[in-house]
């Protein structure tokens, strides 16, 4: 057999390789990685009245909810850099979060019962966001009030900055924090979303 024949036969057979079933591989990999304790960050996207949300969980709990405007790639890179590069798309692992968010948006759930992973929150923001998490459904608090709760009565402005970069919006309800001077105040996901969430809860800003 000539060289050319051999090469042609190799190329012919190579071109007929069966295609990978990517979906089946993803399911198997997700389960195997979970069993081996290697799935440090599992994420999925889910539909909501506020657009497609990206939700990420770690073995400790919910670590991130991102609005569409944040860009999936950038959010995943942030998770890889700050939590762990072992990041996989794994919808099964985000089921609990999905269920509670669905119920919340349908008006069936007033208070989330999800373990949270605060890995993406540092320094001053930890106290602010923990205080924010205690503001109940349907009510609002001012920036100064959460700052005082967190032990910095003069920290209203700093509180606003911390809330603006809240990695777990909706579940850590930064939309419930408004300015003492009246009005809606800012929101990381945009004022329209803040207005939507407050009216969903039947709350009206002072």
């Amino acid at each position: 057999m000539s060289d050319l024949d051999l090469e042609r036969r190799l190329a012919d057979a190579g071109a007929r390789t069966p295609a990978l079933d990517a979906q089946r591989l993803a399911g198997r990999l997700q389960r195997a990685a979970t069993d081996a304790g290697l799935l440090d960050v599992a994420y999925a996207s889910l539909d909501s009245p506020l657009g497609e949300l990206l939700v990420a969980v770690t073995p400790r709990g919910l670590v991130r909810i991102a609005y569409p405007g944040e860009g999936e790639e950038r959010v995943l890179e942030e998770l890889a850099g700050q939590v762990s590069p072992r990041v996989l798309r794994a919808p099964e692992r985000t089921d609990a979060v999905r269920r509670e968010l669905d119920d919340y948006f349908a008006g069936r759930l007033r208070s989330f019962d999800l373990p949270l992973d605060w890995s993406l929150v540092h320094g001053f923001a930890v106290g602010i966001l923990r205080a924010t998490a205690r503001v109940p459904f349907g009510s609002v608090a001012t920036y100064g009030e959460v700052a005082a709760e967190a032990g910095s009565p003069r920290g209203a402005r700093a509180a606003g900055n911390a809330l603006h970069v809240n990695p777990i919006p909706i579940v850590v309800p930064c939309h419930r924090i408004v300015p003492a001077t009246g009005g809606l105040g800012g929101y990381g996901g945009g004022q329209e979303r803040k207005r939507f969430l407050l009216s969903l809860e039947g709350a009206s800003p002072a």
Partner: protein
Amino acid sequence: MRLPPFQSLVDAHAAELHRFLVASIGPTDAEDCLQETLLSAMRAYPRLRDASNLRAWLYTIAQHKATDALRRRGRRRAESLDRTNRDGQTRPEPAVAAHEMADEGLWTAVRGLPPKQRAAVVHRFVFDLAYAEIGARIGCSEEAARQNVAAGLKRLRREVNE
């Protein structure tokens, strides 16, 4: 060091690694082998010190897994021959799937090549890559890639002509 999220490696390379493994060990075991490859990669990933060529890193792991799989298969075959000799019965070979690549004889010969030659031949003829690119993917120089392909072909020619 900044490592990209592991999912982006899966998205970028899984389909191609699968083709590489189908050519290296056959379609029946390729998916299992791919999963083992990705799981091993994921285990080692956070400790990886050089992220400049993640594709070559994945191919190195895949190549090792393929070699392991072929070795296991060789052992199973030997054991089943042993059994045959003991009780005089043959155990059927696993059925070859309908989509199994044609030219099985040729591919059996490819799978029998030393790992570097096998990887180089598969990249040359299944992926139709230039030698520089093959070298980059399997982690050797362009010249070494050329030599591995040539040596692999020489050996294949000898075997298929026998």
